[in-house]
């Protein structure tokens, strides 16, 4: 009772009560760091904007008004100003979140749905199957995705789906390689052998033993890929291969703003900042997911 912080009436440092408190504190230790929470909240807000943004938009995003062209932010009735056709930038931003996020998320989902089983099968069965699958993936990886997008644009019509498909296909080999690597890492470990010894079939082993270990690196790649795909969608929109001009899209807006940079910088600043913040939030969210999925904990 003489040592340390133990004052009058305070129980000894290692009393049962204190021990219980320490255990409780350890249990409620946050699974997410502050940054990860910020990223998660930010990502959530962006997603909510994509879903409900159009309801909050003050104007029709495509309504032109040549009386107020290139109005600066803070202009009357136009909080974020107007573009070169007098369209309300705030409304276009709110509408644009939808196609931008859709291209980023859907293409990543597509790439993962194909790439994950692709890589796991290659890594698990190895041999000639692995050889064949991964060489095909290498070819895909070496193929410039813009060229792929141009090719796809000629055969599929709705531009958003062209962008999603092109961005998704471009991700397949990347995710497949990660899934294959993670599969190779665990497939010879004894617990896979133990599952075989317990009479499990290959598909069950892939699903129950290997998938949980592959999911972690693939999830990380996925969360990195979403912002990359958002930027990719912007590139496609710039080239006229993604979302077509009248439709609001952050990438498209950024591309158009380029011509007016010396007159109205904000035209580029808002979509650019939106893409940047979205990318940042998804990345932080991804880091948080990585930590939370790591059963050993980082701390």
């Amino acid at each position, binding site marked *: 009772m003489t040592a340390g912080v133990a004052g009058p009436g305070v129980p000894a440092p290692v009393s049962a009560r204190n021990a219980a408190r320490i255990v409780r504190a350890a249990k409620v230790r946050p699974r997410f760091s502050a940054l990860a929470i910020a990223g998660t909240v930010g990502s959530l807000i962006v997603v909510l904007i994509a879903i409900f943004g159009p309801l909050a938009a003050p104007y029709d995003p495509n309504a032109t008004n040549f009386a107020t062209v290139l109005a600066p932010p803070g202009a009357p009735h136009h909080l974020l100003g107007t573009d070169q056709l007098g369209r309300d930038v705030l409304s276009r931003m709110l509408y644009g979140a939808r196609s931008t996020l859709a291209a980023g998320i859907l293409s990543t989902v597509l790439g993962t749905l194909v790439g994950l089983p692709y890589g796991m099968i290659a890594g698990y069965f190895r041999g000639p199957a692995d050889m064949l699958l991964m060489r095909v993936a290498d070819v895909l990886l070496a193929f410039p995705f813009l060229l792929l997008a141009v090719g796809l644009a000629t055969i599929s019509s709705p531009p958003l789906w062209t962008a999603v498909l092109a961005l998704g296909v471009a991700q397949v080999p990347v995710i497949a390689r990660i899934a294959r690597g993670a599969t190779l890492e665990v497939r010879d470990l004894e617990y896979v052998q133990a599952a075989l*010894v*317990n*009479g499990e*079939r290959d598909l069950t082993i892939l699903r*129950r*033993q290997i998938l949980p*270990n592959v999911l*972690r690196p693939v999830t990380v790649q996925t969360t990195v890929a979403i912002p990359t795909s958002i930027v990719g969608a912007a590139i496609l929109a710039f080239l006229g291969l993604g979302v077509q001009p009248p439709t609001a899209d952050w990438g498209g807006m950024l591309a158009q703003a380029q011509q007016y940079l010396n007159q109205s910088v904000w035209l580029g600043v808002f979509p650019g900042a939106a893409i940047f913040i979205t990318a940042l939030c998804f990345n932080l969210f991804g880091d948080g997911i990585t930590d939370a999925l790591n*059963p050993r904990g980082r701390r």
Partner: protein
Amino acid sequence: MNETPLLRIEDLRISFRTTRGPLLAVNQVSLALHANEVLAVVGESGSGKTLTALSVLGLEPPGATVTGRIWLGDEELRGVSPRRLRDIRGASIAMIFQEPMTSLNPSLTVGRQVAEVLRRHQGLSGYDAKSRVLELFDLVRLPDAERHLRSYPHQLSGGMRQRVMIAMAVACGPSVLIADEPTTALDPTIEAQILSLLRDLRASLGMAVLLITHNLGVVSRMADRVVVMYAGHVLEQAPTAGLLTSPAHPYTIGLLGAVPQPGSNADTRRLTPIAGQVPLLREEPTNCVFSPRCAYAEPRCLTAQPALRQVTPGTAHQAACVLDRIPDPARETAPRAQAT
């Protein structure tokens, strides 16, 4: 020991084709494991003991050529369909491994991993599986079983992990448990606990145990019978007491001479290593496989690998050695001096 054995291996031969030519890993191995028996397979690394066990389950590495027959009761395991083999694995024959660190999936709770075996073979799920897992955890004396249902492997100690592995192995009441060096990675006190657990489970569940080890201490504490393997061949087999007190094969004598023995002259007796190393066999041996390292090798040892023969008539003690009498190592100070 006269009833039909539970598990019978007949003339097993496992070879690999490598870039440096063929490799004969297991040759002419015949074993019989009787109900309720603990049979220890002893040998150095590379003697083919683990490979023999894996081939029982049809899990030899890809590229291995396996011939011979393996019977579980009256079912010939090397002839059954892959589907039937999967049903046997985990249900009739279970196996535990050396390294409890890597034998459990780090991404899944141990409760779920044990439940998985029950789901696979007994169709149990949900509450039924959970209560059965709890029973199994109690059976393997895992402390705080309820809490550990949701523990991840890294939250458990090595001994606890091995208990979980044992729970998985005995989940479906196998008739044969293959234990591949089950205590090698554990410290001696935990080793003793795990061994006594295995002994108790063997008795209460009526399993036969095929114990693969290189630890003669474990053998003396656990095994009813011992098979000594060397370079893919069975060199000696005998009831444990007989083998430890009067080994008949020079290799077994060498093995016993290389480990400290508790008791009598533990302080003064020098440990004698066996010189050389286990040879890699490329083809059918034309001499006794141990002859290059044998202190007693004679010209007739270089003509063929001897077959197992009765050491003393009327006993179960067999050795694959042509020599009639090996000088007793306990009284022999320097056996190598007599080498020809």
